[in-house]
């Protein structure tokens, strides 16, 4: 008997189609939202970046980026700050995640809440809180001088230091979470096996634990780095006008010069650079395998 004319074949096929339609319609609102609020405006900005003041096609915004050194500086400082923040987040986050992963699950969960707490507070609130803490007459400088740790107020804010402190603080949970999750999923038997085969705890860490936790580390580092590239509030508040990252530059172009084309072109370039980094990273570490949980 052919499948086409089989018993109930038509009805069964219709059921399958109906199920697929229902699934599709469930994702409909989200697809619509993303299209309206993301793809359309981004497409529009992309379009704007190729128009001059008179509305004609032009590459002047991109040319300006190459000619004016202030644009290059904005990109360089953006990547520098993102890189340093990511590096310090790794140095702080990895040992923290390791310590948490070795605790009993119940204790670790409580500690994770402590890690997540700042995560649930408004970014603006946290940034201004750092301003209060770090400024010349702030808590840290006052106490540092009182305790005789240093003599005159340290320049902790309104510069690169402040920006980095604020960004690292905000980004740390993004590093700790994926690293912790990966470490938790590492079967303890791997470490036992390593020890049984003759590896000291230190060697077992370097030869087995670290490689197995690498997927989480890469995921965390990429997330931190890419989120850093788009930072605006923290450098604006804690950088004291001295730190101009790309996002700040975009804001200036729009608020001060009403130059949407220039702002758009910056956004487009940042978007493309981010894409290139993601692609390079995925080529480097086979991100797809890590993201699909193939690491452990």
């Amino acid at each position, binding site marked *: 008997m052919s499948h086409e004319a089989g018993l109930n074949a038509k009805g069964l096929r219709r059921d399958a189609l109906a199920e697929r339609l229902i699934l599709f319609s469930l994702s409909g609102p989200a697809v619509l939202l993303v299209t309206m609020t993301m793809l359309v405006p981004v497409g529009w900005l992309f379009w704007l970046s190729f128009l001059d003041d008179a509305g004609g096609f032009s590459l002047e915004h991109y040319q300006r980026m190459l000619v004016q050194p202030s644009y290059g500086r904005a990109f360089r400082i953006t990547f520098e700050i993102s890189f340093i923040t990511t590096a310090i987040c790794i140095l702080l986050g990895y040992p923290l995640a390791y310590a948490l992963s070795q605790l009993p699950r119940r204790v670790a969960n409580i500690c994770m809440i402590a890690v997540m707490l700042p995560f649930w507070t408004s970014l603006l609130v946290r940034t201004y809180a750092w301003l209060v803490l770090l400024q010349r007459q702030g808590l840290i400088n006052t106490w540092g001088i009182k305790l005789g740790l240093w003599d005159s107020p340290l320049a902790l804010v309104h510069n690169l230091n402040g920006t980095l402190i604020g960004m690292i603080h905000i980004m740390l949970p993004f590093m700790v979470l994926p690293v912790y999750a990966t470490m938790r999923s590492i079967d303890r*038997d791997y470490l036992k096996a390593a020890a049984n085969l*003759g590896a000291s705890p230190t060697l077992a860490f370097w030869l087995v634990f670290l490689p197995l936790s690498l997927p989480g580390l890469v995921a965390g580092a990429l997330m931190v780095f890419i989120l850093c590239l788009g930072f605006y509030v923290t450098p604006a508040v804690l950088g004291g006008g001295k730190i101009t990252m790309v996002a700040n530059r975009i804001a200036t172009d729009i608020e001060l010069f009403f130059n949407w084309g220039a702002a758009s072109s910056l956004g487009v370039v940042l978007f493309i650079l981010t894409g290139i980094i993601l692609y390079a990273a995925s080529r480097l570490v086979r991100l797809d395998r890590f993201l699909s949980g193939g690491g452990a």
Partner: protein
Amino acid sequence: MARDAALPIAVRQLTKSYGTLRVLDAVDLDVQRGEFLTLLGPSGSGKTTLLMMLAGFVRPDCGSIRFGEREVIRLAPHKRDVGMVFQNYALFPHMDVAANIAFPLKLRGIGKAETTQRVEQALELVKLGGYGARRIDQLSGGQRQRIALARAIVFEPRILLMDEPLSALDKQLREHMQIELRQLHERLGMTTVYVTHDQREALTMSDRIAVIDLGRIRQIDTPKAIYERPANRFVAEFIGESTFITVDVDAVGCSFNGVPLTLASQPSRKGSHQLMIRPERLTILEHAATAGINVLPATVTAAIYQGDSVLVQASLSDGKIVSVRASASARVPLVREEIYLGLKAADTYLLPVEERAA
């Protein structure tokens, strides 16, 4: 490896408690040089804890463990130099097969050429020659099991520990691997301690079996002795199927519910005893009076055809239900049919009388 290079293991007074729960209770155990000893017990009996202590992963409260002359109780796991096969194999997923097997050699500073050679030898030994470049996730369960074994023996440890290594395999493969492991042990001769909760596996593979329950060794002996002469009711019930009937022993002889029985050996103590009956040692007799065999009249309560055999359940004169495993070619009796069960004198075994509240 020469058999005399294997090390004996001597465990003394090994004790471990978690809170009020005593997982191991002053265990003494001697494993001979080159012996294949199985720790057999139900889950939670302490058998795995004991194995983990031999490997150094669980710290006992007190006691002594010697490998040969050397006391190892406080020695870190990575210095014990024992091979171990884990239940889930614990093959490193970020290394290929060859790197996994080379791992212990690399840590022992063995040169590249020799490492390559020994890895290939170990692969040949487990019949997976040429699999070196495979990734772990490309292997089947049985292949992983063999690789785990290759990794555990490649550095020629003098003691090999195995924690239910076959439990994740399907039945057919498991039985095949049991024989293969046994042959491998005969070839390599390393002292082997094997943990399982599968009695058939223990009977198949071991030189001796230590039956463990509630943190104590209940009996340690050869498979045949454990099966045929269990030291106590726990061992008798844990290994194989068994039914116990109460028999009376007096000066004249032994009787069950008034029916005289001939025993293999007359116990010294008079009074009531527990007679162990294994289903495969009973036969269904054609005639009520058969010479040279004990005859027990019974009524069939169930008869089940099982392919290789027929399982008959019958109630004896005192109402006790016994199982009988008869040949599948025999006639399947009907339910409520009156039958006569034969038990040879040589197959009778009275359980030793246990001291109360031991």
